[in-house]
């Protein structure tokens, strides 16, 4: 049976998730990449946007207009989460966001913030952009469009968005860090 997390998220809803679990998410999803994170920290969220209990998606979608001039998401896979490592812990603390979704894992500072503030990081399978777009019901809003289509902050309504594999849980366990150790051991044997 699908485990579905629903907006608004609370620490209670996510505290028992373990790394490696597969979940889906229904509710408000906010895209933010490098420039978006920088702006959130430097000048705060745009007016009318709150991430409390919400989910950030590390992604830069392709957006087009349909025949009625209405915007829709064409293709929207995740981007590399690690690029946001230097700022994510501060974003979690500052905004109250509970779910971070992206490609691959994140590192120590983010894992520590997930533990302290009760948040999780999940990985969406990289490149599966049309699968993701099909789970986006609509575009609710867009901010910071002057950063260009990929870097803008898109407010999306999603239904059963996933599969999301928990990569950092609220205990601070880190799936990709564990994998990294395994790959490094194999590398040692290979070049040893």
């Amino acid at each position, binding site marked *: 049976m699908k485990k579905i997390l629903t907006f608004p998220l609370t620490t209670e809803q996510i505290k028992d998730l373990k790394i490696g679990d597969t979940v889906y998410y229904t509710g408000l999803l906010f895209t933010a990449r490098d420039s978006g994170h920088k702006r959130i920290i430097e000048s705060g969220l745009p007016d009318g946007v709150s991430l409390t209990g919400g989910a950030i998606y590390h992604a830069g979608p*392709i957006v087009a207009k349909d025949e009625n001039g209405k915007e829709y998401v064409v293709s929207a896979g995740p981007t590399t989460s690690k690029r946001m490592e230097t700022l994510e812990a501060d974003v979690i603390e500052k905004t109250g966001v509970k779910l971070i979704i992206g490609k691959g894992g994140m590192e120590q500072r983010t894992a520590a913030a997930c533990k302290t503030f009760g948040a999780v990081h999940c990985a969406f399978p990289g490149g*599966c952009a049309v699968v993701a777009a099909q789970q986006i019901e609509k575009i609710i809003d867009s901010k910071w469009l002057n950063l260009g289509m990929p870097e803008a902050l898109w407010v999306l309504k999603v239904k059963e968005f996933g599969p999301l594999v928990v990569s950092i849980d609220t205990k601070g366990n880190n799936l990709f860090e564990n994998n990294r150790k395994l790959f490094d051991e194999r590398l040692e044997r290979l070049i040893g």
Partner: protein
Amino acid sequence: MLSEKIIMLSDIIAEFIKTVSINLSDDIDRRLRDIADSESNPTAKKMYSCILDDLELSRKLNRPICQDTGVLQFFVEIGTDCPFIKDIERVITIAAEKATEKTPLRPNIVDPLGEMNTGNNTGYNTPYIEYKIIPDSSDLIIKVYLSGGGCALPGRSRVLMPLEGKKGIKKFVYETIAEWGVNACPPLFVGIGIGACAVTAANLSKKALLRPVDSENDDKETADFEKEIEDGLNSLGIAPLGFGGDKTVLGVNIETAGRHPATLGVGISTGCWATRKGEIVIKDDLSFEIPSHKRLKEETK
């Protein structure tokens, strides 16, 4: 003023770019499905199943496989008698803009030192175009490569001491993929260039990716080295997407050029599971074929 024929040519190229953004080339498609079929790890199987769903959906809905439609790179072989030779750069640039609007592709090109996006995938010396002249031919052959961001991050080139030899090349490749492979959307297509300096090696590593993943280098020793590195990388078990599984790569191709006795230049380029590349052959009467995507033609028959 552009002639009608030049406009038609730009439409053909724009449509070709669109095709490549929506459909994997035959070689990559085949290899990816084989790897997905043979995977044994349960989480890995789940990821491959999502990848195969994505391929189905993108084809059904006519949308780019991945939202990162990359930076457009063109490798052009043009006959000295090709009637489009004078206009080729302009035609490709127009085609890139048209494909961006009509597919649509994601506008990716930004100011190199700033963050402003040009909005149409051109500007600041892009799209990237390389030329090769074919004497006494009127054909135009264009290879396109959609160079995504995540899978370009592992790319590097360095000059080793010749005595480091094959062992040094392997160490460089294995360490690079172990450190950077996870976020480049594995299973990866790894291109390696071996040449005189950092530039030639890097260039050859990209050329290696333009060759089919299921081909091997004509030189026996180089072909054996491709296989050796492929097996080595697969033993890391990084794919799919860094979750860990039976494989790491779609394949490894090596291209070489004569080097200086005092240098061993090694370049690495990587393509993701959705390596998007294609080749179109256009005749002077504008008839054309897309040999990289033969299965699409067969399916529509």
